[in-house]
């Protein structure tokens, strides 16, 4: 689905990514793990064409990735927000249209999603009236609305209460069943362990560990993922 080939990026004298090679398999949940400042956000922004790499290339479904391919990505950034003064429905339609959906389709799908998440009654409310968790739900719907082939979720559970986190988890798994490839970036090891098929651990701009979660756990004597994380980072 997505092949990251020898990507490097420096900001001035700071090396953010140093020869990153990764392969995200079709229909897999791929965990992108690493401590703060490891380069995860930079890598995600490069995949999204928000910033350009200094060197290296990305293959998307087997061909060199172009700006048009970005429309097939749904990206839920860690730093996320909505226009506070705009109404929920209006805003969701706007964001969907930016992604290339026409107005009618956007409204139809939004009502479906909002209905399933039981948030349809928020349609005409201003975003500022919503709690943070409620806003996260809206953001999630907006992210997946255009049926992206690749979903990139950066800390999707932050700000969710356990009930809604569970709801979100089920939605993610449902999307996976439908064939969506998911890149899941997090610090939260238990949820990574629960959801991911493959993982990559990035530290100091390099890939430290990479492969199927089961294999990695096996080669670390079945330690829990957070132990593996700490051991790798501290060595």
């Amino acid at each position, binding site marked *: 689905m997505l092949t990251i080939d020898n990507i490097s990026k420096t900001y001035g004298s700071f090396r953010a990514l140093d020869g990153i090679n990764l392969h995200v398999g079709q229909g897999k949940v791929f965990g992108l793990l690493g401590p703060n400042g490891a380069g995860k956000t930079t890598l995600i922004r490069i995949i999204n064409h*928000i910033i350009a790499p200094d060197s290296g290339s990305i293959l998307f479904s087997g061909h060199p990735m172009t700006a048009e391919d970005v429309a097939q990505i749904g990206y839920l950034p860690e730093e996320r*927000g909505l226009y506070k003064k705009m109404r929920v429905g209006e805003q969701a339609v706007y*964001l969907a249209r930016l992604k290339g959906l026409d107005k009618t389709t956007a409204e139809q799908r939004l009502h479906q999603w909002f209905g399933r998440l039981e948030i349809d009654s928020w349609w005409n409310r201003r975003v500022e009236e919503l709690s943070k968790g409620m806003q996260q739900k809206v953001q999630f719907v907006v992210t997946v609305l255009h049926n992206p082939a690749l979903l990139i979720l950066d800390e999707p559970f932050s700000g969710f209460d356990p009930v809604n986190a569970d709801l979100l988890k089920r939605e993610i798994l449902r999307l996976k069943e439908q064939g969506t490839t998911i890149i899941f970036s997090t*610090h939260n090891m238990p949820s990574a362990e629960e959801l991911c098929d493959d993982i990559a651990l990035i530290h100091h701009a390099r890939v430290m560990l990479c492969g199927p979660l089961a294999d990695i756990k096996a080669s670390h004597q079945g330690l829990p993922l957070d132990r593996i994380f700490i051991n790798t980072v501290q060595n």
Partner: protein
Amino acid sequence: MNKIPLVIQREYLTRVKKPSFWILTIVVPVLLAVVYAIPIILASRPLEHAHVLVVDDTGLFQDQFRSSRDITYHGAGSIDYARRQLQQHDSLDAIIYIPARETTLPRDAYLFYRSDTPSLTVQTDAQNQLQEILRNRILLDVHGLTPDDYALLTSTHIRLRAQDIETGRDGFLQVKIVVGALLALLVFIAVFMFGSQVMRGVMEEKTSRIVEIIVCSVKPFQLMMGKVVGIGLVGLTQFALWVLLAGALVTGVQLTHADLFEQASARHSKTEIATKGSEATYQYQTEQERAAQYQAGQGIDNSLQDLIEGLTGINFAMLILLFLFYFVFGYLLYASLFAAAGSLVDNETDSQQFTLPLTIPLLLTLLLLPSMVGQPSGSLSVWLSLIPFTSPVAMLLRIPFGVPFWQVLLSMLLLLATFPLCIWAAAKVYRSAILRYGQKASWREVWHFLRSNTEARPSAHSSASHTQ
């Protein structure tokens, strides 16, 4: 697919749908008009007729008070008598009492009233008449002048009229100053009002972090330009509505106060005759007219008539077109820079560092307006009206005075050449700075953004705030 129209649409609609937009567009001008109209309406309304008793112990003023449409003066023998009359008769409003002094001329006169303070009209009229009668007395008794001599003296009035020798039209310097200053002020306010809206809009997107989602769908440049254009259209909408509103108001005034305009146009046509014929005849006629107006008590202010007459001589279509040009391109120039300033900061307080240098050129021009008005074709005025960062304000000030065509053209061309450069520079800074959270940028970094082709690195520490 080009997403700019979508961005423009959002920026435009969210602002136009706000109640504050309509308040500013409709309520404020109507309120201003009402505030200006109330004194005029009140002044033209007939007052309640006042009756005033005059008690003069000096013998200088007796029978000299002239009654008018609003006030009748009655002579009364003694202050005691008058006092009783005032207390007994509701129809009486006040007493003017001038006590006698032994040696010199009277210095104080009194206006006695019962319960209601006499109106300002009564007080002003009494004051003026006292002054005039006393002066007449001195002229008459000391210098031997008759009231007719005095009337001639006071009615002698000569007005200096600046006129174009080719068109024979009046210069109406004051009107030009007012119109020029208003235009300059309006474009200044508009550029900064809408420019800072752009800045706040950019900051809103940055601080709410929605920008991260949006730049996945549109390029930062498209987002910035969509915002600048959308808000600019809001400004144009506002002006269009103001012009419509002003047109409706003027038409309304023309219909209800047709006399004002008829007199103005009558004077206008007379001016043309006068330039061909004798100035003296004209002068005589206007004096007669003025006297007649005064007698009739219509109270039309001469300066107001000058204003209307001067305004009818101005080419408003041209003014509006030039105003639009300088607003649109001055706005594009400044709004893009404001967008860059907004992208550099996380909150309004920090933004001052970058907005202050932006405001200085136009603010300086505004402060120099008085000296420019003194010499609208002086070198200061010419230079300021050519430099693109000051020309929107400076040129609009000069336009009513008449500006050589080549200067207008050069000023426009320079502005047209400069605004794309500003947009280009702003876009570079904006693209680099918009995704940088939590750090305040310095001027050194701005310079770096301008030169480099790379983007700012995502701030590492901001992710810590969300870690559970």
